[in-house]
């Protein structure tokens, strides 16, 4: 083997080792969570409320809570994200304004999530007097999801070929008609992918809802957006840190982790399928 061939051989195998280590960690991670919590996940675990100070029963209220928080926060951040992106892409004037907005967005994206929690507590819970509620939590999560949403929408809109915009305007369409009838429909699939990725992010966050929406234990399902709720990630945290029956609580925590993980993976899988279908159809 010549020196060059040897280098090539070593180089390729080095890459193989790195990829193997990455894969092993991922598999190990899934194995640990599922082996510890997999057997907890039964139909009744998914559909019943916790019992006996959370040492028995299921996690249904936490699933419901996570569902509502996610839906409402995405429902708030999606229009804000899309409209902001439309402005930045289509009008984008004055330049200094757009640049400041972009800096603000990127800064927002880098803020640790616990700080969102404190922000939500100050602004939504106390200042706007929304109390610890689904609404406060959703608003906090919406602020958290906003940078991702704006960036995804902006990228999607910029991905629409300039030709389409010219074609529309040359046919006598106004800027507004061009945005509504050409730009948005063309960018929509990619905006949706961005949205679904945000759902995964929002559903798994604990810190932002710690002081704004989450409650340790309630048997009651929420009846309005002003109720506090149980949520999956916080439920895990609570089971691991509070209460006096660790031997019974820890398996429930792992079971909850399996459910949360499954939900997030499911959402990502949907995003991948959508993206795959768009790429297959797209011809420009």
């Amino acid at each position, binding site marked *: 083997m010549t020196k060059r061939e040897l280098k090539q051989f070593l180089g390729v195998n080095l890459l193989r080792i790195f990829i193997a280590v990455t894969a092993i960690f991922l598999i190990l991670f899934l194995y640990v969570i599922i082996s510890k919590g997999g057997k907890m996940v039964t139909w009744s675990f998914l559909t019943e409320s916790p019992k006996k100070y959370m040492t028995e029963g299921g996690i249904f209220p936490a699933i419901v809570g996570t569902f509502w928080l996610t839906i409402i926060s995405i429902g708030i951040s999606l229009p804000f994200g899309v409209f902001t992106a439309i402005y930045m892409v289509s009008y984008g004037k004055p330049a200094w304004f757009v640049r400041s907005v972009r800096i603000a967005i990127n800064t927002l994206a880098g803020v640790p999530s616990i700080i969102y929690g404190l922000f939500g507590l100050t602004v939504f819970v106390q200042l706007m007097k929304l109390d610890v509620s689904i609404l406060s939590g959703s608003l906090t999560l919406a602020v958290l999801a906003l940078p991702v949403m704006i960036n995804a929408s902006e990228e999607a809109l910029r991905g629409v070929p300039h030709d389409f915009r010219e074609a529309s305007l040359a046919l006598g369409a106004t800027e507004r008609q061009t945005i509504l009838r050409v730009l948005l429909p063309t960018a929509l699939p990619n905006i949706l992918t961005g949205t679904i990725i945000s759902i995964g992010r929002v559903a798994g966050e604990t810190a932002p809802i710690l002081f704004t929406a989450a409650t340790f234990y309630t048997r009651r399902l929420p009846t309005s957006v002003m109720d506090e709720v149980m949520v999956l990630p916080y439920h895990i945290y609570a089971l691991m840190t509070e209460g006096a029956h660790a031997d019974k609580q820890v398996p429930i925590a792992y079971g909850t982790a399996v459910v949360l993980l499954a939900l997030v993976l499911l959402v990502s899988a949907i995003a991948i399928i959508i993206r795959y279908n768009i790429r297959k159809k797209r*011809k*420009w």
Partner: protein
Amino acid sequence: MVNTHIRTEDLNLWFSDNHVLKDVNIPIYDKNITALIGPSGCGKSTLLRCFNRMNDLIPEAKIKGKVFLNEQNIYEPRIDVTQVRTKVGMVFQRPNPFPKSIYNNIAYGLKIRGEKKSMINKIVEKSLKESWLWEEVKDRLNESALSLSGGQQQRLCIARALANNPNIILLDEPTSALDPQSTAKIEELCIELKNKVTILIVTHNIAQAGRISDYTAFMYLGDMVEFGETKKMFTVPQDKRTEAYLSGVFG
């Protein structure tokens, strides 16, 4: 004598500090084909885009002078640009159908003006027939326009412009991305269409200008060097630069 459909009066255009069009005066005659020729960067596409105010989209463009469409200056402040662009259709260098169905591509201009469904159906068929595409697509109007070949897409873009019932169609090097057969078809189509509309075509292809145009304008470095009947200009060019360009000395 034919009527003047569009004319410019001392038209000047700058992109920032770059003086792209210099005191351009040109008449475009009604129901004739006028070709704009000249080397790359001479300003012919920019001039074309002055006729439907597409240069408005470029923030650093500054325009001085007048462009008369049926003796109405389209650069007057009270002019509705969308009206101008409805009357003056445009076909681009690269076929650019929307990622919508064939039907919806043609219907687009009508829908944004709120035409009735029955009316739209009629016009879609008429426009596709006028652009010689009807027989090829009549059974698959709901398929994506992107499934058509390049030449078909370009004829679809012509049909889309025709659906607005324009008086003028601007073509910006419409065949430069097409194969020779598709090119020939578009050229024939242009000759057929001049019975109905005024056609203004920018082309890199001198032979194409010779084949289809009635009048030719030769531009060089932002100047309108020579304008006249194609036959005359191609046989006896008045300006040395025109002669050099037509004989392929530069370009």
